[in-house]
């Protein structure tokens, strides 16, 4: 921990270290207090409150007194098909977006890691949509996915007019449109993280592999992938959590939030609808707690299967 100095007599070192610890501890409080107070007030207390509200019939504004209802809110949600529809929508979105977006990001990162002219320009272009806030991105794509919009114009050209769905009003295609927007807007960020990891893989390993006669694919499989393992795990975990939180796109893109016919209703849309739209804080909190547990379990499972290796 400390750098060895020319050894002074033992006792003095000791005294100095003790006084150092004391002054450190004093300053530590100074450094920690602002963050600790804010985290306590705005993360820990609300989280505890969410757990408490979820076992009461709390409402946003209500003349009736709040009453303890036990696990009624949970029972009600778990028996409600709307809740399960929302969960199913979350899982089908995440199940598709997480692998596809991560694979796409890796492909982009490998491309801009090649020795080609203009790779910085391409990297910048691929990242640009990340700077477009989701509310703006969703709005632009609503217009693009209009039944008479640009996307259909292109598709009609390619399929000779046989395929032009009304994307955002279709129970099949609305979710697809949301997937496209999410990937378009988010993939550049994963690319940057994976690119940084690619550039950290020591060249010697590639050279050694080449000497052993490994081709491009074998080098990718046995040098690149193990070399960026930790970054891949990070990207997969974060993308999963963000995918589960899906809210902005299904709220902004269909004609009504979560529509049409609840085919884009996600857990978060459901929660906000209950807690804010219908002012049922208790029921909304129950959804929040269930949602937290699911994300927690997913994160733990992912960590378990994709254990990080210290010296990958």
């Amino acid at each position, binding site marked *: 921990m*400390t*750098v060895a100095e020319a050894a002074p007599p033992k006792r003095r070192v000791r005294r100095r270290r003790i006084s150092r610890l004391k002054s*450190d*501890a004093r*300053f*530590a*409080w100074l*450094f920690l207090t602002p*963050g*600790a107070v*804010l*985290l306590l007030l705005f993360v820990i*207390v609300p*989280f505890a*409150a*969410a757990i408490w509200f979820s076992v009461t019939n709390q409402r946003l504004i209500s003349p009736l007194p709040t009453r303890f209802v036990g696990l009624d809110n949970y029972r009600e949600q778990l028996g409600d098909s709307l809740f399960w529809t929302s969960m199913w929508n979350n899982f089908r979105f995440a199940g598709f977006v997480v692998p596809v977006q991560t694979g796409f990001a890796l492909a982009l990162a490998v*491309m801009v890691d*090649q020795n*080609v002219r203009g790779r910085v320009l*391409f*990297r*910048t272009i691929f*990242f*640009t949509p990340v*700077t*477009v*806030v989701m*509310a*703006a991105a969703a*709005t*632009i794509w609503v*217009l*693009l996915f209009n039944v*008479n919009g*640009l996307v*259909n*114009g292109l598709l009609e050209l390619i399929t000779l007019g046989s395929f032009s769905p009304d994307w955002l009003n279709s129970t099949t295609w609305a979710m697809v449109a949301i997937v496209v927007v999410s990937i*378009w807007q988010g993939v550049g960020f994963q690319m*940057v*993280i994976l690119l*940084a*990891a690619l*550039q*950290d893989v*020591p060249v010697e390993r590639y050279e050694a592999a*080449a000497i052993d006669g490994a081709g491009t694919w074998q080098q990718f499989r046995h040098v690149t992938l193990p070399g960026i393992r*930790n970054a891949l795990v*990070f990207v997969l975990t974060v993308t999963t959590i963000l995918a589960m*939180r899906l809210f902005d796109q299904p709220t*902004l893109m269909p004609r009504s939030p979560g529509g049409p016919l609840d085919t884009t209703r996600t857990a*978060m849309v459901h*929660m906000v609808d209950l*807690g*804010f739209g219908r002012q049922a804080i208790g029921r909304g*909190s129950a959804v*929040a707690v269930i*949602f*937290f547990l699911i*994300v*927690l379990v997913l994160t733990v499972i992912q960590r378990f299967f994709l254990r990080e290796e210290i010296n990958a």
Partner: protein
Amino acid sequence: MAVTTATARKVERRRRHERAARPGESTTKRWILYAIMIALAAFFLFPLVYMLASSLKPDNQVLANSQSPEAFLPTPFAGLENYGDAIDRAQVPRVFLNSVIISGLIVGLGLIVNSLFGYALARLQFTGRNILRATIVALIIIPFEALAVPLLFMGAEVGWLDTYQIQILPFIANPLYIFLFYTFFLSIPVSLEEAARIDGAGPLQIFTRVVMPLAKPAYATVAILGFLFSWGQFLWPSMVTRGIEVRPLPVGVGVFKTTPPVSWGDIMAYTVLMTVPLLVIFVVFQRQFVQGVASSGVKG
């Protein structure tokens, strides 16, 4: 993870590219790569070109043009008329200022609060340090959405609805940013701080004079991440604000949705106004950002 200095990185990159450009590499392969990258660039850029072109033409021409190549051209040219309309209808000066105030304070105060916390965890000796570190890691998993409903209730109880503070205070301290600072501070060689300590500097002076200048990439990364996140916030402001007085830009889009004849030109002008500030910031600072991600703990 090993700390690579900038020069070592450069040498490494040169070697890498020499390797990549070995004579056997065919030019056909290279052209295929270019073709793919140009196609992808088109995929990422066409919505933005379309947005810009649409914002400069009459409202009724936006959809009419969108299945012809004219979709990408500002024809017929309407000048800045849509911008004028969008600014009036959505009260852009007000909403824009709100966004600047909210994001500016979240990011600025957040940098101070989170880096101080991260530094204490990384370098200062105090009892309970390990427990505190584990707590921070656990807090990262709690999604804000799970806190939104009780926070809304608490905010309503203390009369904070439709205020700036309810949009700012919950987002200053952030366990993820604390953790990023913590891992970055751990990677700085401790010898410089020891030297300053021997010269008689206290922890606060060491932090401001030695550590902060060394940690510029971490500050840049957290600032950009924080700005991207707070500028785009939609869920929370739409829950806690009703009037235009304290609403930020993303929620303002709603103004155009409720009015029956959809003026796509105005809407596209509004999205341009919402997008341009971040785009400019990113293009100017992109090198620092990419390096910051590379050198901070973001990549795991």
